[in-house]
């Protein structure tokens, strides 16, 4: 022991010697701010090492370095721009740090150009590619929820590759899509973002207010999402190769609690007995189908099956990306390839995506520049079988998936029609393969330094095919009917030619003018076909439909539309304080008739950089303060290409052996006077930064009105038609949005930052048909949101002391009690009322990031509050009292357990639809990531620029009252989309060479 102590003392002395020797190389100095005032607490670190110190109260520092010349000192302080200084011959280095105005130096895509955030006049928010990567979502669309205020992404399911829809600032249109326009590297599209790989994205800018979206004119009313792929901003001499990858295991979480699951089958037996006794009387228990011999045997042996867990399997999620970029004197390039694989939790559900992108820019001369971009993505989705998971929910634990040879058996419950979900998952195959490509090329000519002429041709092509195979041994075919195959294809082409003139001129020091003029032509074509075959001789899936005994549902289509646009936008900045943006777009579309096909969509926006005013400029606590005010108009071109036509409809008449096709005038009269649904919006925003930008953010309030809604109006049949579309309705959206970034703690070793977003939108129908009347049939009510839940309102469950009162309504104790609005003791549609709207009252996202030395922990949360949704799952599995199936284990009414929510088992209560009306409130911890950034000194040794290792878990915690799996996908189709809620454990690495 003594020996060890001695060695330690010797080593300590040696170290001290080295330290004492190093003290001779001391660098010192003072760190000040813009005003020359000293800044205490500034981190001063020798780059690439952990050697560092902080400035004292006078802003002074002193640091020892191994060698003086050539070392780099890094000065960082919250709210200031980090500065690096190479140590020269002098050992005194005084540094002045510039105030960092969070985000305002960032460049934002505004359509046909960019602008510095500090000059922005509209409401635009940005999410970077890095943020999208950290979110770890296969579909980047989902990542915008809670990261950009005003955006609401709705997932259809948790199955891999499930579709998503996005709304920006609520619904405007009643009849047509409210999906925003996606502009990928300048190419407008409605194909969404499922095909994009987060690693290929530089940034996504979401244009929200009408003054911003007016630049896209007739397609801007629902907002615009501008996606910029990597490589758009490569600097000369910067060469990078980056690999990022992760692999994870996905398991089901929050599995809904069915009666008798997790091995407690006796609970189900008791439930079934109670159900039969109540529903059919005690004598019904003697029926042979009450419990089959096999079921009784299993009950005696305690052999129970948890069907949901029987059909679910862990899934593998993996993602690999390689990106490379380089900047040379005249040429820059960026290249990326990516592979994503996302297994589902049931059967063969799977999503696979391969992506490749290339961007090449070349300067031919000082005045001439050219470039090309290409983005290619192929994905294949196995959507999973219809009904497999639904069967797993329905089949009770007393049924076995195995036959006497312990093989999976088709009929698991002879007393019901539900077949083995494992076999259903194998034999009902639904697959889609999609291919997306964007190509563009441009030539840019700068005759003088402030004028640019750019011509860009872009081509977008996407194609998809969908196939479905329904084998004989499926739920649909019951093991006896012939097999069936369906095949469908679609093909969309979109060609755009944009010609842009940009004038960017600063004159008289204090005036800057940026003018963009556009002439654009666009044509899109769409074609597709489909067919269905029945009774195919062998398992050829959908690849040999010609062998089918019967081919039916043969269809094909083609349509095209085109758009011609002129646009002019002028940004004028005075004294870097006052900004004015004027935009006008004149669009002509083939989707409307000649008289109405042209429309002008103007906007005006003002910006005031208050911080730059002399009376605020020196206010230390205010680092940024800017006011924005805008008004604009934009249209919705999402109407059908044939919306104005009166069409012939096809009928098949019985004639001869095969019948004959015939055509007749449609019941729907075309209206040549239709014009665009037009949205106008006023937006006021404040961008702020306080305490050296430790608190910064944006507040927006808006009021939006959409007029001339295209609505179907019923007309008297004496006109020869039943309905006609007219521009007659008006809707409105008003809202409030907040985005805040805070630096809660900042020290040399520990940092804690928080990003918060909050969105609130109120949607309302202002007018429908001009007569101030509601449309009861369509559930459209003036003064209410576009989508409402209009139904009975549940008051509770009829209790024993209310037996006499219940009898007046023809109801029993234990039945669902609903409100008799008109008090006539007869419950019918006259007692329906608006009980909610399937839109959240507000949403919020919050991300906390904690950093300790090189370790970091990020916690991402998302909340939706309010909203009442119609949920088929909650309804089916609490309301249905099928004598052979299972249901959710909730508090059903019994004389002992006087539940006031769920009816008595087997009572056959009416008004059970109220059980499907569920609250959409939830709080999710979406992602927790714990990572390590390798030290610079280590990276230097192995010639890496950056390396990061992390572990992450997605969806670890969800707080909600929802009785289904995932409250974010309330309302999924139980047959084709029903899914389990995944929790994913991943580990990944990012390496930059």
């Amino acid at each position: 022991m003594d020996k060890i102590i001695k060695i330690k003392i010797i080593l300590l002395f040696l170290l001290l010697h080295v330290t004492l020797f190093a003290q001779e190389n001391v660098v010192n100095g003072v760190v000040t701010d813009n005003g020359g005032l000293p800044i205490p607490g500034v981190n001063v670190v020798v780059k690439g090492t952990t050697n560092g110190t902080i400035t004292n109260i006078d802003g002074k520092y002193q640091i020892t370095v191994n060698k003086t010349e050539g070392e780099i000192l890094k000065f960082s302080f919250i709210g200031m721009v980090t500065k690096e200084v190479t140590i020269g011959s002098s050992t005194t280095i005084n540094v002045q740090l510039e105030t960092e105005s969070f985000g305002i130096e960032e460049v934002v895509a505004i359509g046909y150009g960019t602008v510095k955030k500090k000059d922005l006049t509209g409401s635009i928010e940005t999410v970077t590619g890095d943020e999208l990567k950290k979110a770890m979502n296969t579909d980047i669309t989902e990542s915008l929820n809670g990261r950009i205020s005003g955006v609401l992404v709705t997932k259809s399911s948790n199955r891999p590759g499930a579709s998503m829809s996005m709304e920006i600032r609520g619904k405007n249109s009643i009849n047509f899509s409210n999906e925003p326009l996606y502009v990928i590297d300048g190419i407008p599209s409605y194909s969404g973002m499922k095909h994009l790989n987060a690693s290929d994205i530089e940034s996504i800018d979401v244009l929200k207010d009408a003054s911003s979206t007016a630049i896209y004119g007739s397609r801007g009313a629902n907002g615009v999402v501008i996606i910029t792929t990597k490589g758009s901003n490569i600097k000369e001499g910067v060469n990078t190769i980056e690999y990022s990858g992760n692999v994870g295991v996905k398991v089901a979480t929050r599995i809904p609690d069915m009666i008798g699951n997790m091995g407690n089958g006796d609970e189900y037996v008791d439930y079934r007995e109670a159900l039969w006794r109540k529903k059919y009387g005690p004598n019904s228990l003697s029926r042979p189908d009450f419990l089959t011999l096999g079921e009784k045997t299993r009950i005696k042996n305690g052999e129970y099956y948890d069907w949901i867990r029987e059909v679910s399997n862990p899934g593998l999620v993996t993602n690999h990306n390689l990106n490379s970029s380089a900047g040379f004197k005249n040429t820059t390039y960026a290249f990326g390839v990516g592979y994503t694989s996302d297994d589902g939790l049931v059967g063969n559900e799977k999503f696979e995506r391969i992506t490749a992108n290339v961007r090449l820019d070349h300067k031919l001369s000082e005045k001439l520049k050219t470039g090309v971009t290409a983005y290619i993505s192929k994905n294949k989705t196995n959507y999973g079988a219809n009904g497999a998971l639904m069967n797993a929910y329905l089949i009770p634990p007393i049924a076995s998936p195995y036959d006497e040879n312990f093989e999976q058996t088709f009929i698991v419950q002879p007393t019901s029609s539900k077949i083995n979900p494992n076999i259903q998952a194998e034999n009902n195959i639904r697959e889609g393969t999609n291919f997306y490509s964007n190509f563009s090329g441009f030539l840019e000519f700068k005759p003088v330094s402030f004028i640019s002429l750019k011509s860009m041709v872009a081509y977008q092509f996407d194609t998809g095919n969908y196939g479905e195979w329904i084998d004989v041994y499926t739920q649909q075919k019951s093991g006896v009917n012939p097999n069936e195959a369906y095949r469908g294809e679609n093909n969309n082409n979109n060609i755009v030619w944009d010609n842009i003139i940009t004038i960017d001129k600063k004159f008289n020091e204090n005036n800057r003018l940026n003018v963009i003029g556009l002439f654009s032509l666009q044509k899109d074509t769409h074609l597709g076909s489909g067919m269905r075959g029945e009774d195919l001789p062998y398992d050829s899936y959908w690849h040999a439909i010609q062998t089918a005994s019967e081919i039916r549902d043969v269809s094909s289509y083609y349509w095209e539309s085109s758009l011609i646009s002129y646009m002019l936008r002028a940004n004028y900045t005075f004294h870097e304080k006052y900004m004015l943006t004027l935009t006008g777009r004149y669009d002509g579309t083939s989707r409307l008739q000649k008289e109405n096909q042209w429309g002008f969509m103007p906007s005006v926006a003002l910006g005031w950089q208050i911080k730059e005013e002399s009376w605020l400029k020196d206010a230390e606590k205010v680092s940024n303060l800017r006011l924005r005010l805008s008004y604009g108009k934009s249209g919705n071109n999402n109407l059908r290409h044939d919306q104005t036509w009166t069409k012939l409809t096809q009928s098949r008449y019985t004639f001869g052996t095969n019948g004959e096709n015939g055509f007749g005038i449609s019941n729907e009269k075309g209206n040549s006077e239709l014009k665009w649904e037009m949205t106008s919006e006023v937006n006021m925003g404040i961008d702020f930064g306080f305490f050296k930008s430790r608190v910064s953010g944006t507040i927006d309030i808006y009021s939006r009105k959409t007029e001339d809604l295209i609505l179907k109006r019923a007309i008297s049949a004496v006109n020869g038609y039943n309905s006609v579309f007219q521009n007659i309705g008006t809707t409105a959206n008003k809202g409030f949005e907040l985005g805040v970034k805070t630096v809660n703690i900042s020290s040399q070793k520990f940092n804690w930052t928080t990003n918060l977003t909050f969105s609130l939108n109120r949607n309302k129908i202002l007018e429908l048909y001009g007569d101030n009347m509601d449309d009861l049939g369509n559930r459209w009510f003036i003064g209410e949101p576009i989508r409402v839940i209009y139904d009975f309102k549940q008051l509770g469950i009829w209790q024993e002391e209310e037996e006499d009162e219940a009898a007046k309504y023809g109801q029993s104790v234990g039945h669902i009690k609903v409100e008799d609005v008109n008090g006539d003791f007869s419950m019918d549609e006259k007692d329906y009322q608006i009980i909610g709207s399937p839109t959240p009252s507000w949403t919020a996202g919050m991300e906390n990031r904690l950093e300790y030395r090189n370790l970091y922990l990020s916690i991402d949360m998302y909340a939706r509050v309010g909203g009442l949704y119609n949920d088929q799952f909650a309804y089916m599995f609490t309301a249905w009292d099928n004598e052979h199936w299972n249901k959710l284990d909730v508090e059903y009414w019994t004389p002992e357990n006087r539940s006031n929510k769920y009816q008595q088992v087997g009572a056959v209560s009416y008004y059970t639809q109220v059980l499907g009306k569920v609250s959409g409130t939830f709080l999710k911890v979406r992602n927790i990531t714990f990572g390590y950034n390798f030290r610079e000194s280590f990276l230097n040794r192995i010639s890496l620029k950056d390396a990061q290792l992390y572990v992450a878990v997605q969806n670890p915690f969800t707080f909600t009252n929802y009785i289904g799996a995932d409250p974010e996908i309330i309302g999924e189709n139980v047959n084709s989309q029903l899914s389990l809620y995944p929790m994913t454990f991943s580990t990944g690495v990012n390496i930059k060479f």
Partner: protein
Amino acid sequence: MRKHLILKSRIVSIVALVSVFFLSCEETEVAREELKFDCLYESLETLNTMRDTSTFGDADGTYPYESAYTLDKAITDLQYGISLALSDQLFLQFEVDNYCILAGKSMADFESSLQITLEPGTPAELKVFGIDQKGRIEFGADPAFGGGKVFTVESWLKYDEGFFESAIGDFIATFNNVADPFEGWMINFLGDNMRSTIGMGPQSARVLEFGSIYPKNYGEWNHIVMVYDETLSENQLKMYVNGEVFFTKTNDIYNGSGELQLYQPNTQNMNMWAFQEPTDLSRTMTGYMKKFRMWDGAKSVEEIKSLMNSDVVGNETGLICAWDFTEMPEDINNIPDKTGKFSAKIVGKHKWYPTSK
């Protein structure tokens, strides 16, 4: 070494904690109560008493000899059940109860086999044993039974406790759920409710169905009426019990395109049966029927109240068919209706009980 031990003990602790956590997540199994055999012995005693005290023969007031054999079989079956129970081969209480229920059914069957000979024309009431698909009334097959856009079904019904025990207790129906779309109409029972169910289309597999808690006045007659009137904009489907509105229901059956679906009369087998559904034979009930009428047209509440207390002769306007089961018929296989157009037959187990007119 010590570190290893500490590490190992920590791993063991973590595993133990995790195991405890997961084990505690397992739901506690429901503790089964001890089986009660009392009803087995009580039923056996009752059956034996019946067997020992009843008179068997061919004359009225006696039980037929085959009933004795049936009773013997019921006793044997019950004894077998007791053997199973005592040898722990019955696991759930309902299995024990089932033997008692079967014994109870045997007793009821035996009781109903008491021989009573009624002369044709004797005032009587008809009980049809529909449960277990033992009996039904067939009114024949005719397109008129399907009903049209407007029709009324009217009948008198009496039942005892436990009068249905299959999926749906069907009283009277033309319903056909094998057809696509569903066709026909049905008055039926389920859970706490007496309901009307009508097939709607052209969309596949749709019904307009509603009900209300059924009268619990067991052993008493109820006048039951179903009215369908497609010409109305609301409350197209109605039921009346004893002249009072039982429920009204507005047609809210729409297809995916928002098109209102309409009633689809039975166009295929066109059967009209009582106490058993003509297509799904498992839907049965046991009860008494006094009178049955079907009308082409929608009867108002006043008309219904009037009809409740009056008879028809057969030539009333709008009367499609009418039967009175109030006296012993000449031929149960040919019971003519009052309009003279149709003939009904009673199939399977039924019984006529004498009444005073």
